[in-house]
């Protein structure tokens, strides 16, 4: 069985992020890394450079729904390119082996507190969706995985269906997180696809979810990032997978 990491990046900015992400993975893991992109990426970091068509929507939901098809590995970990891996992911791999599909289900602030999702995940709350994060997920090539992502693609390509399935609040722009959570709910597989472990910690830098009384629209205007051999946000050393979401590196 082959194992590896798959990163997705469209456009030079995200390719740069993916390179930094891959460099951080290389520090902690010998597993292969591949990149799915709309352009050629000339870096030795990536064992495979899978070329795909450019997506024109904001979140590239079509391409990102098809990563399971394009992955060269039997067992794949997908990490969003604007992330830095700060610690070994062996526990993640060990816990997920043998499962079809797992999404990290708990995000943390830079202070390692559970993320305050009340402000940032209104669509999820108002439609009673589970909390799953596409930014870090694992899949094995299986019929279940295929069916799941096919359904995600259907949700993301049919606006009328989305409105029907998300009656209380429906995002105007298709979103992978919303579609994945909706698919998990409707396929009644939330428990099956939720990664419940606390190792690795998944740090999500949504500025309004950091527990600040005075948040800014950009977290990097509220607090400094120090990125060297280690990542510090203000005085906090980061661990796990650090999803920085802004152009800070």
């Amino acid at each position: 069985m082959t194992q590896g990491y798959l990163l997705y990046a469209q456009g030079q900015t995200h390719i740069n992020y993916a390179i930094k992400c891959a460099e951080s993975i290389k520090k902690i893991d010998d597993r292969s890394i591949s990149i799915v992109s709309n352009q050629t990426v000339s870096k030795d970091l990536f064992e495979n450079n899978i070329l795909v068509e450019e997506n024109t929507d904001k979140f590239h939901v079509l391409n990102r729904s098809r990563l399971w098809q394009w992955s060269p590995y039997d067992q794949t970990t997908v990490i969003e390119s604007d992330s830095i891996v700060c610690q070994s992911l062996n526990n993640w791999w060990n816990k997920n082996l043998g499962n079809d599909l797992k999404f990290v289900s708990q995000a943390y602030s830079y202070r390692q507190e559970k993320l305050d999702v009340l402000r940032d995940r209104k669509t999820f709350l108002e439609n009673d969706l589970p909390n799953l994060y596409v930014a870090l997920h694992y899949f094995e090539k299986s019929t279940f995985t295929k069916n799941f992502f096919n359904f995600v693609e259907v949700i993301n390509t049919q606006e009328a269906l989305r409105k029907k399935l998300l009656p209380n609040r429906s995002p105007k722009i298709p979103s992978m997180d919303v579609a994945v959570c909706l698919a998990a709910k409707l396929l009644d597989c939330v428990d099956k696809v939720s990664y419940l472990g606390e190792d690795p910690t998944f740090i999500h830098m949504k500025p309004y979810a950091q527990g600040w009384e005075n948040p800014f629209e950009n977290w990097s205007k509220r607090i400094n990032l120090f990125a060297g051999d280690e990542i510090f946000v203000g005085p906090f050393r980061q661990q796990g997978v650090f999803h920085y979401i802004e152009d800070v590196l």
Partner: protein
Amino acid sequence: MSKGCLVFAFNNEKIDYIKQAIDLSRRIKKYLDVPTTIITDKKIISEDFDQIIVIDKNFYSSKKTYHDGNTNERLTFYNAARIQAYKLTPYEETIVLDSDFIICNDNLKKCFLQNNSVCMYDKSFDICSFRQTQEFTWISDIGCKFYWATCTYFKKDNQAKLFFDVINHVYENYSYYKRLYQINSNLYRNDFSFSIAAHILNNYQKGNFVGDMPDTMYYSLDKDEILSISNEEILFLTNFGKKNLAVKTNKHNVHCMNKYSLEKML
């Protein structure tokens, strides 16, 4: 293992901290049944203390606004000697207390039965429960967890020595740490240096270098007035906005921040 409490008390222009310390030492004897050592700046005669240690207070001072309900004034605040608690304590196990901490039960005895080298309160409750503030949750909006230096337990061991060494380092480099943790106040606070030291020793992460105190700490703000104090009950007139509410605590340890009001009641 010798056990005892340590109280720092340096009078300023208006506040008689030594008077508070004497009352506290009596409560310590009554509820915890351990001796109290006072650290102060003048020779005093009192049978309430096991030891009286005299040090120079002038090295550790800053100006602070003291509130008494709706009025306030700037007075000298001699607070930083606390960083020498490890060096000065005559006990192998010590609880350092603010003189304005009113002990009303024996729960702190449990400190002496647990294994952590250092214990502090990180959770505390406003006696006026609906006043919402993050002031005592984090040391600043972006900063680390807030620990109360008000009541700190430590053993005389390497872990605690390291903790106080780091506190001294933070104190000596306070302007740097103030910026790093985005602390807005210019006043040096032991709560902040103790909290930062705990954070550093947790490898700049969330962690458990400091253990939990075996009790719940309540606090009243300096805009609250104390109306009466008995052995176990304290009656407050709390203030929120332009409103007042009477609150009585019963068998709870309370940190009373209105020094004027406390002094009147002792």
